[in-house]
């Protein structure tokens, strides 16, 4: 059952991350590409949001801006009381380091480090991390700690990436097409891992996908099109990831 936003203020009051009037224009040669045309978005503490939309609709650009990988052309992003858009490169790095976890379509693991070491890469610079082994068992990889990326399947590699993203106990987990390169069976294993992190750690999570089915596991689904949020739908109940199929 689906209900139109706004979400119920009684259950989700605290805004973790907020973007206001975000625009992003890329100047490529003679043409200006408007990737974002004034997006307002709030992510509430502990919620799992799925951003749906066709490719080129601007959802990745939004995620990159929210995660401090990119800066908007106008508008502002605030994380709790921190104005993310006001800072320089070093502040953005600090922000990513302390508060944000990223998961990408291509896993971006460091090939020269084992699963455990890939996670340790982050825990070594984090303030209050969990042990790498703990993060890996959270995504169901407790048995494959000492394998190198080349020795892991795609789904396993993606779960290492998730473990790496959540090991520092981030406030926000941003996933860009986490299942894009995986078959549905493996994809569901990955989504389960994300779901579990969201539920057990209470990490505010945003997942980008063009797979509408994945929307069913979210608290809220934002539909994206042409650089804008077209609508926002709240699910009254979340469907467990293992029950999804496509």
């Amino acid at each position, binding site marked *: 059952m689906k209900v139109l936003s706004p979400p119920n203020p009684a259950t989700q009051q605290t805004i973790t991350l907020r973007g206001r009037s975000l625009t992003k224009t890329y100047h490529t040669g003679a043409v200006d590409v408007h990737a974002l045309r004034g997006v307002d978005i709030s992510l509430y503490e502990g919620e799992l949001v799925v951003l749906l939309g066709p490719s080129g609709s601007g959802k*990745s650009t939004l995620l*990159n801006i929210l*995660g401090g*990988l*990119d800066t908007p052309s106008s508008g502002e992003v605030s994380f709790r009381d921190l104005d993310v858009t006001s800072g320089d*490169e*070093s502040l953005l*790095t*600090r922000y*990513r*380091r*302390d508060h*944000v976890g*990223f998961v*990408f379509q*291509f896993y*971006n*693991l*460091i*090939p*020269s*480090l*084992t699963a455990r*070491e*890939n996670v*340790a*890469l*982050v825990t*070594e*610079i984090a303030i209050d991390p969990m042990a790498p082994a703990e993060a890996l068992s959270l995504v169901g990889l407790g048995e494959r700690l*000492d394998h*190198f*990326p*080349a020795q892991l399947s795609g789904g396993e590699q993606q779960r290492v990436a998730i473990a*790496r993203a959540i090991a520092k106990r981030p406030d926000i987990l941003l996933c860009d097409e986490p299942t894009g390169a995986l078959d549905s069976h493996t994809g569901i294993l990955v989504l389960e891992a994300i779901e579990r992190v969201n539920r057990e750690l209470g990490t505010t999570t945003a997942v980008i996908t063009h797979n509408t089915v994945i929307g069913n596991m979210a608290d809220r689904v934002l539909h994206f099109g042409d650089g804008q949020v077209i609508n926002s739908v709240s699910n009254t109940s979340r469907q467990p990831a293992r029950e999804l199929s496509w």
Partner: protein
Amino acid sequence: MRALNLKLLRNLWKLRGQVLAIAVVIASGVAVLVMSLSAQQALQDTAAAYYERQRFAEVFSNVKRAPLRLVERISTIPGVRSVEARIKQFATLSIEGFEEPVIGHLVSIPEQGEPRLNRLVMRSGRLVAPGHPDEAVLSEPFAEAHDLQPGDQFQALMNGNQRTLTVVGIALSPEFIYAIGPGALTPDDMRYGIIWLGQEAMAAAYDLDGAFNDLSLGLLHDTNPEQVIERLDRLLERYGSQGAIARKDQISNWFLMNEIEQLKNMSTILPTIFLAVAAFLSNMVLSRLIATDRSEIGLMKAFGYSNWQVGWHYTKLVMAMASVGILLGWLLGAWLGRVNTELYAEFFRFPLLIFRPDAGVFAIGAIVSLIAALAGSLGSVRHAATLPPAEAMLPPAPPMFRKTALSKSRAGHWLDQPTRIILRQIFRSPIRALLTSLGIALSVAVMVMALQWIDSIEKIVQVYFHDAQRQSMTVGLVETQSDTVLNEFRRMPGVLAAEPMRAVSADFLVGHRSHRGAIEGVLPNPHLQRVYDAGGEVLQVPPDGLIFSTRLASKLGVGIGDTVRVEVLQDRRPKREIPVVDLFETYMGTPAYMHIQALNRLMDQRPSLEAVNLLVDKHQLSSLYQRLKSLPKVSAVVLKDAAVKEFNDTMAETIMIYITFFAAFACALGFGVVYNSTRIALSERGRELATLRVLGFHRGEISYILLGEAALLILVGLPLGCFVGHGLGWVMTSAMDSELYRIPLVIKAATDATAVLVTLGATAISAAVVRRRLDHLDLIAVLKTRE
């Protein structure tokens, strides 16, 4: 233009930084090759033309006194084209404004017409006129040193008579390109000069009417000088000949040819180093390019391009990269060759200069570098050509890594992940890492090799001038004199000590080996000119037997206890078997020493001497100089301090140019290697580094991973470079080894340190360039692309 060629050009443009870095290394190799070969050729051509034009003689001999009628008989020796009989003498000169005694080497010239051989190149003024015995022509460097011009006058003590000579001309001669006075190591134009006087004037002054004491021969084409020398020696023996020499042993020519020979060394060792590194660099760049071009290679093949076409495509890329380097190297080499030749020409005062680098020189440079670059890239090109299309279009399998022994160890436990990345990266491609370190090492080594000369020369000066010689000056006498003359010297103002020295020309024969040299007679325990072993030991001279320099001993193949046949070439020409009783090492010449009394006995002469070593009180130098100037029959006055200064100046002039060249090349090498290896690491691992940035690593932290790897390889390369540098230094000093001198291999710690610092500087610059790129890493673009 064909699409594939367009792709080639765009690839080149995209890789321009790396192409340039390789080009610089190739260019350095080609430049050194072209420079040394063209300078060598130019010097050879110039010297040959100079010799030819001025009819430089091919055989030289001197006698005590021989009648001029002998000339006719000499000219009938088969192979002799022309004969020039001259008179040569030494005179002590007094030149206004110069306190020290100056030795003039007087050489006669015909008073009418040009000499048949060894003609002068007039720089100003004219030759001497008949009937004007006091007219003199001066060699240009000497005239310039004293600022003497036609019309100026100076005093010469000729055969005991003080004469006033008038300068009428300034000239150059192929015979005295390198004018070294007796007992000196380097030219000293202030204290030694060539002076040409009329034949009759000289004959009158030295009582040599109708006689000569010096002979030059011009030979017919294809004549073996040795055969002529043999006949000539037989003819001149009874006139006091000490044996004729061929042009190759004539001192000025010997130095000139030695200089040219050294350029040959440079043209082999250095280009080899540079081109080997260039081969490695082109291999590195190309294998990376082929890895990135993988799917395109698959596509090209899917479209129907053959393996051969794909291979040729990448071969062209390598050739284009090499061509940039070759072109740069040609330009640089031709320019440096010209500059180098001009410097030499100035140093040798060639009146003409032929710089016509042969196209062959450039072709050699190009072919050698092309081969090096192609050889380096052969493996990568073959890999590209044989890659099956279907496989090529798949993404490459993720690179395999292994845990190293270190990370499994207890110490490895404490490594942070970035350091682990660095170590695994190195151990994953150990050969590439090793070659990178080796490239850096070679940069250090080239620098060590260049700087080492300073240390070696310092050592030579220390041993030769300071440890062995305690005298302030050496005075050479024209003829053998009774040792009573010693008392005369001891009475001179300021003389604190005087020791006699003998020098007797002799042939040393052992089996079929022989050496023409001299026996120097010294006191058993001399305080001034000591028999000093370079190892630091002062040898006692035993009452009998020969003390050989190690170089002479090895030339004759003898050791302590062996007997050498000595055939003296002067006076009564005694021949005797004499044992070698001790050996010592020296850097200069091939001396042989003997107890002075033993030498007197051998010569069957009363105590005699040919030279006096003096220790003098520096405050009384002026009066001593005055006294020396009035002394007849002096052939040489060698002042130690002046000799050291001249030696250092001459060395500084040539060595500093050489070191500057090499420092520049060494920097190019270090820069090229580090730039390429870090650039490639960046392109291979940009994704990894961008990921780390996304994960919250700061710029400095990711720089640590990329540059830390380079730093580690540099760290390995630096000591390795010092090690290789010592080896190269050894090769270079061994290549310079000659009978005239040996360069000791001395490398001070400071030299190693300087080389290391220079290389560190060059690598730091290239690291900074790459670091700038690292700061502009496009995080999003990198993450969006497939691995």
